[in-house]
């Protein structure tokens, strides 16, 4: 019987850059991002896909990188919190989170930002109820959530205004 393969060569687009690596078959996307690529902005907490801290976008869809195999990202595009701001300019969601005080310790924030981006990219101008429903998978222990919802709502409002 053949030995199971323990390593795979993959090609992933991470924040717009194509990365080619050989990874262990058990490598999780969160470890690939944090350890192999030193993209430590994404955090990890529950390791069970229920806290949302490790959320990144894979082909624009939010996934929990703590339970997503790196090999499954082969040929796909991964977006992390590091890509949000450019040229020293914050993304509107980042601005809104700071303005609304939608974070304190900040550990859950990259996950909330990516989850919110996933929603507002797919559904610009989302209403409050949609926002609340969409963010239910993300835990924040500091804020009591209201400022987070307000921050995302304010960006959705901007989107609605711009669409007019």
């Amino acid at each position: 019987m053949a030995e199971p393969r323990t390593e795979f060569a993959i090609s992933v687009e991470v924040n717009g850059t194509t990365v080619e690596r050989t990874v262990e078959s058990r490598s999780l996307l969160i470890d690939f991002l944090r350890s192999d690529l030193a993209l430590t902005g994404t955090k990890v907490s529950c390791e069970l896909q229920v806290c949302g801290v490790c959320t990144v976008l894979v082909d624009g869809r939010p996934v929990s990188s703590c339970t997503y195999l790196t090999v499954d990202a082969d040929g796909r595009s991964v977006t992390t919190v590091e890509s949000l701001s450019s040229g020293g300019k914050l993304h509107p969601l980042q601005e809104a989170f700071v303005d609304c005080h939608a974070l304190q310790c900040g550990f859950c924030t990259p996950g909330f930002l990516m989850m919110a981006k996933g929603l507002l990219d797919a559904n610009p101008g989302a209403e409050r109820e949609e926002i609340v429903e969409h963010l239910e998978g993300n835990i924040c222990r500091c804020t009591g959530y209201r400022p987070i919802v307000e921050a995302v709502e304010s960006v959705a409002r901007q989107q609605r205004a711009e669409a007019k």
Partner: protein
Amino acid sequence: MTEFSTVGTSVRRRDLVEKVTGSAEYTVDVTMPGMLHAKVVRSDRAHARILSIDATEALAAPDVVAVVTAADLEPLFPRFGHIIADHFILAPDKVRYFGEPVAIVLAETLGAASDAMRLVRVEYEDLPSVMTAAAALAEGAPLVHEQAYDATGDDSFKSLTGKKHTMEFPEAEGARTNVAHEVDLEWGDVDAARAGAHLVVESTVHYPMLYAYGMEPYNAVASYVDGALSVVSSAQHPYMVRDDLARIFDLPLSRVRVSTPYIGGGYGSKSYTKVEPLASVASWMVGRPVKLVLSVEEAIYTTRVDTADIHVRSSFDAEGHILAREIDIVMDSGAYADNSPLVLAKCVNRSFGPYRVPNLRVRGRSLYTNTAPASSYRGFGAPQGNFAAETNLDQAAEQLGLDGAEIRRRNLVRHGEAILPGKRGIDADLLADLEIAASSLERDRKDTPYYGMGVSCSASDAGAYPISTAQVRIQFDGSVIVFSGSTEMGQGSQSLLSQVAAEELGVDLGVVSVVQSDTSVTPYERTTGASRTSTLVGLALQRACADARTRIRDMAAEIWSCTPDEVIDLPGAVQGPEGAKLAYGEVVRKWFGGTAGEVTGIGLLRREGVTQEMPPFWETGMVGVAVEVDPETGVVTVDQLVTVADIGFAINPQAVEGQDLGAATQGLGGALYEELVYDGPQLANANMVDYRVPRVTDMPRKIDLVLAERRDGIGPYGAKGAGEGQLNPIGGAVAAAVARAVGRWPNRLPLTPERVWRLLNDLEDSDPPA
């Protein structure tokens, strides 16, 4: 226009900008050159003798460098604990709880360490265990600790309450018990008061076992080289951790460096020493840096919240005035004392409420059991004691035909009145706060069935012990760096300290930066806890700024060849004779002669002057909760949450509101959803799937956060602390609201759907407290 330029404004927090970009550094992000990865082999039973540990197979595994066990620690002091040094770094002869560290596996990669961890063979002989406080108290109960330990608690702990503290370590072997700590508080003649009372109300409640869930699990990276130890850790109190580590290695304090970058959630649960000794002894063993990051499950088994069984008996006159209160508190503090003696002492102080209580008797006991160690959690004993006594008060109100606000109105102490003899009077206007909370609730009361409201209040002797130091360094361009040992864990201390410095020195907030929490760099700070930073660090920083200004005036006088009293302060500058003016940067440059130099101001705070009287301030809580219960399912929906923070002065109002809503939300978690459950030797739900914390969909429909700013604190500009106050009374308010909605009084939290449904249907608890 306000009288202030910077404080009192919700300024943009620079730490938040770092955090939204992902560039903020947390301990989990820190690496050291050549570091190894550690995994901890943990006990898989509650109480057992260790017969042997066989690491042969693990050591033979690929990339494994070493396996550390208690036997290796023989040259060291193998325990830690800032009150009682009872906490073994690695279990020596026996394990005292499921999850206790037994060995550390060190490998070149995390994967290799994880694989090899499973290859360490530990042979045990089971011992009878005590899994609850009641079992630990029983006659002839097995002992969790057979031996005595020296108390390491310093004067600040001993003088904490000025009342009887018993470190329960009797000399005679036969007299040993599982009582880790005992605190008694008594005044007046309780028995006589009860005998003459119009009404006596008794109640017993159980406060659940909680987990704070700071989302960054405990972690550290340590490097021991040539008699010097350097540790980066997720510790709230790096100086306290340093002291523990120095004792372990018998090193001078100057040779132990502990630094703390941003912390991913503290809430008291990252107070004191956690995993730093494990990482440090591992590094000491192999001479290479070691990184240890716990999983959430391991973090739950490292520190959870003290449970409490509390009996309250209150006596009242016909008008509802309290005549006497008798409170008996039994806490399950787990296998090691950690901070539980302090939690107990605070629970005792905070149990009877900010009321006129002419006769009082409180007995508190903290028990060792074979469960995960308990320690600090936001509120320090207040949530437990307050829930018990506030529920009792609300039951009395019902029997007296009063509403919850009215019975409090009749008993609350007035501003300046003491609730603890010899201590600072209450520096808050609780009566006014009560009216704010009650009227907000009433305004939005819904006239629907199964709707209930509760108001509840608390007072905590906060601020901890007043020892604090701060530094400001004025650069030669006039910009300012603040140095503080106070840790930024999300509460906003970094931003707040920059506001105070900008205000005091009259400089723009944009030129102030803050360096925090590195024991070899920043000035000493006892702790970051008990809501002390605004008040105590704020005072120390004001003094540091005044000191810097004095130095600047002296230097300017030298430059102008005048006397220092001819120099007066301007914002960011000084003015001398004949209208001469120099900005701070110019003073520094001229005095040193060149584009160089720096002026350091130092601020010291100790127990004297405004901080002589203890506590430094009272942190009060005043909350209102309205709930709607679904009679079919027992699900509780929070319709209203009202908090009134009596904070004196809000240096950053948005940050205070953030703390209040966060604290109240954690309170709602413990009141409605959260509970760790032991099933046999181990927890049934040591993970975030089964341990349910509040989510965005649980948000109260109405949230009203009120800041009562009456400038009556001793802190800068009249400030007092915030952060815990609005958690403490939530349990009582929720219990009262649910009781009024369903018609029966709960005797425990959390009020899960099943428990509420059983209350509603007059059924017994399916899982009554032990």
